[in-house]
């Protein structure tokens, strides 16, 4: 369903990126990288009011001709970015929200592994399996 899933640390370096197998994976990496600016803009603009009123789901960050990019930021400034194919028009907002919720839960479970140091690249198999499940094109 998704074309690419990325997890970005609060210092804005990537912890985890996975894309559907394609010849030009680099374009997804660029897309995720450029979407970081939009994410920063969204989280700074609402920072003036009470911080806890900001919702975690950021929604559609920006559309390109082929893809739509969605964002989600946790309260610890860890960002999840999902790139979906525009042609898959049946994907509703709710489904994207559930996708992010699943990602967030998987991330938290992985973080509870005592052998994972926060800030390291994510190598957990179970997290990987959950992301691969989301990437599968049906």
């Amino acid at each position: 369903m998704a074309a690419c899933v990325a997890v970005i640390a609060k210092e804005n370096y990537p912890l985890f990126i996975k894309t559907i197998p394609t010849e030009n994976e680099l374009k997804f990496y660029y897309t995720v990288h450029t979407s970081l600016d939009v994410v920063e803009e969204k989280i700074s603009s609402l920072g003036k009011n009470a911080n806890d009123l900001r919702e975690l789901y950021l929604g559609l960050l920006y559309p390109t001709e082929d893809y739509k990019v969605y964002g989600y930021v946790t309260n610890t400034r860890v960002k999840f970015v999902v790139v979906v194919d525009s042609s898959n028009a049946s994907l509703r907002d709710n489904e994207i929200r559930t996708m992010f919720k699943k990602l967030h839960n998987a991330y938290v479970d992985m973080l509870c592994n005592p052998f994972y140091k926060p800030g390291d690249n994510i190598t957990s198999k179970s997290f990987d399996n959950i992301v691969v499940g989301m990437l599968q094109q049906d």
Partner: protein
Amino acid sequence: MSRQGNRAGDPRKVNGELFTLTYGALVAQLIKDYENDEQVNKQLDKMGYNMGVRLIEDFLARANTGKCNDFRETADVIAKVAFKMYLGLTPVVSNWSTAGDEFSLLLESNPLTEFVELPPGHSNLNYSNLLCGALRGALEMVQMDVDVRFVQDILKGDNITEIRLKFIKRLEDAVPVGED
């Protein structure tokens, strides 16, 4: 203020996730300190032993089970009463040896290892070795010398976690040297 009276349950109870995360932090720190899986296993066993010799008193005071007549009864008490009391689960007792002095405890889930994935270089690590030490220590205090070890471990890829207990000998109270 009126809520305080409603705090139900045993004040010694603690959140399960806190327990799991604490144990995980303990093992991770031991690995950083010793850097050798066998050493870490030994330390966990020692720590478990120290816990076991104390836990047995608490267990005997709370469980009211009375004396076990043979090793089979001991196995049942360990699985049905002790594990239930301290970890909230009941392992299955199985794989009795022909002589009746060895058995296995099969655990389908292990609360100590929730969320844990062993990192690649540590395939020899017995993550829950504290359990083995605790069983050994507790049984030693009731005059049984038992060897406890892990045979299978879900963390290492098996389907089930299996702990094998082997009865070695009965311990007699040793008369201190010098007294007759």
